[in-house]
């Protein structure tokens, strides 16, 4: 870890510096009795980046792996809607990076601000510079705040919450919901797809409505959806809305948020006065992917070679998770980011050794959604690589949604979280 820190600017001033950096990293990488086969720097310790780090060590052994992450701990977006309902705590969705450290991953807490693909270096906000042979970017999403007038200012002032990145926003929105008067209005705004976690907004509405019904039964929860209909698990959510949340929850499609002014949120047709405003902003690939020139799909998402997860814009950089331009019917989910990270880890180990990569990767997705504090349902899909079309395609006849919401799938959902957190973070 210290070696990683010491790979500072002073080692990287000229052409000869790259050699110096290689030598240092080579020493640092001798974790399994041999010299390092290469240096992989990963930016972003969420589901994608953490899993890539874990599996590079698990499968690669002598790969020198450094993971750069802003936060000191991992906070999960999946399950965070239960925190908003008061059914789980922040501690329940927070895990440490100690497992990855114990697995030999060098953790660097800091913010990566620039990539130099020519020199193959990443620069941190504090001035540190790390050299890589292969770079993995898993920066999640960032928000297109300029598309909604007043949203940036309202978020900055704490008058509006996104809670679409788990952490302080989750705790703040929970606080606002708890503080809301009985008879108050909670208004949620869903952006046009694609966005991170397609069923997430509808799950959130159901869980918060469950809390309101119990704690503040005269309140209303209004969903304004920019999409023409529920974007995921439509039938199951419609049933939950009508059978569990009627009288509290109201759903309005084709209602895109245009502006926030004071405590009024404007769509094309409505001025919505609300006590708590949860505006989920329109999204694009992460800032670092943008500044590195990776967002080559509609200037919004990063195109990748699905055999390796390597960027189609800049060689040597692999991109994972929500920032990628999704293959057909591939959701932007933590589960999928974990799966993509395994494809990338296997490929990077091969590429570092000049060996052929797996020509037939498979990824799959499982996504559970709670519809109350005690019942959940799922959507699942399996995606096989299609060599002719050079993309992942779902297998006809496979995948699907739950027959009905159930108590047992709520247990599965929590077990899923326990297992994927352990898998991604190498928890003891």
């Amino acid at each position, binding site marked *: 870890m210290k070696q990683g820190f010491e790979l500072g600017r002073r080692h990287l001033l000229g052409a000869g510096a790259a050699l110096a950096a290689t030598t240092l990293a080579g020493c640092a990488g001798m974790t399994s009795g041999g010299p390092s086969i290469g240096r992989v720097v990963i930016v972003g310790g969420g589901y994608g980046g953490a899993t890539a780090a874990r599996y590079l060590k698990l499968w690669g052994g002598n790969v020198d792996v450094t993971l750069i992450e802003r936060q000191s701990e991992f906070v999960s977006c999946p399950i965070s809607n239960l925190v908003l309902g008061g059914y789980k705590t922040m501690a329940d969705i927070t895990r440490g990076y100690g497992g990855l450290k114990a697995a030999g991953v060098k953790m660097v807490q800091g913010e990566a601000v620039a990539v130099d693909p020519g020199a193959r270096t990443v620069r941190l906000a504090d001035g540190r510079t790390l050299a890589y042979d292969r770079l993995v970017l898993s920066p999640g999403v960032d928000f297109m705040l300029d598309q909604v007038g007043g949203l940036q200012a309202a978020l900055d002032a704490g008058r509006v919450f996104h809670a679409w990145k788990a952490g302080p926003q989750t705790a703040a929105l929970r606080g606002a919901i708890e503080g809301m008067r009985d008879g108050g209005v909670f208004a949620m705004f869903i952006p046009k797809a694609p966005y991170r976690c397609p069923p997430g907004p509808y799950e959130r509405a159901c869980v918060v409505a469950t809390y309101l019904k119990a704690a503040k039964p005269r309140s209303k929860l209004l969903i304004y959806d920019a999409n023409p209909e529920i974007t995921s698990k439509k039938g199951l959510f419609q049933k939950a809305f009508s059978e569990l949340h009627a009288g509290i929850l109201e759903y309005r499609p084709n209602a895109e948020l245009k502006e926030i002014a004071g405590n009024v949120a404007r769509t094309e047709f409505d001025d919505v006065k609300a006590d708590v405003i949860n505006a989920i902003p329109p999204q694009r690939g992460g800032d670092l992917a943008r500044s590195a020139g990776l967002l080559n799909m509609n200037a919004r998402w990063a195109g990748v070679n699905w055999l390796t997860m390597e960027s189609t814009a800049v060689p040597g950089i692999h991109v994972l998770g929500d920032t990628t331009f999704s293959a057909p019917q591939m959701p932007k989910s933590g589960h999928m980011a974990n799966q993509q990270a395994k494809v990338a880890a296997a490929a990077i180990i091969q590429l570092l050794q000049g060996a052929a990569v797996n020509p*037939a990767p498979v990824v799959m997705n499982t996504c559970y959604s709670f519809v109350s504090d005690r019942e959940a349902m799922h959507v699942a899909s399996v995606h096989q690589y299609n060599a002719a079309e050079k993309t992942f395609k779902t297998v006809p006849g496979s995948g699907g949604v739950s027959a009905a919401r159930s108590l047992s799938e709520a247990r*599965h959902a929590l077990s899923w979280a*326990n297992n994927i957190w352990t898998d991604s973070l190498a928890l003891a």
Partner: protein
Amino acid sequence: MHRLTRLLVAPALLLGGLSPAWAQDANLARSLAATCANCHGTNGQARGDMTPLAGVPANKIIAMLADFKSGALPSTIMGQIAKGYTDEQVRLLAGFFAAQPAKR
């Protein structure tokens, strides 16, 4: 069957560098099995009430997935997932899990 699969798969994992065909099979099996790890644990060492796959005989895993696929074994989700994998892929991932130590 279980023992046979161990004999076939374990050396391929250990000696992956020696024969490209073996190495490819072993890496493929490992990667296929890793698609199950989100729920069934890393290398099949599951936590909580998920079914562990580590150390389970390959023929048992193959039979279970076939029954999920056909519907003979009712499920909420596994039937839908099993239908996404080919028989050859199931054979490979089952062999991998069979060769893993059960959870410590």
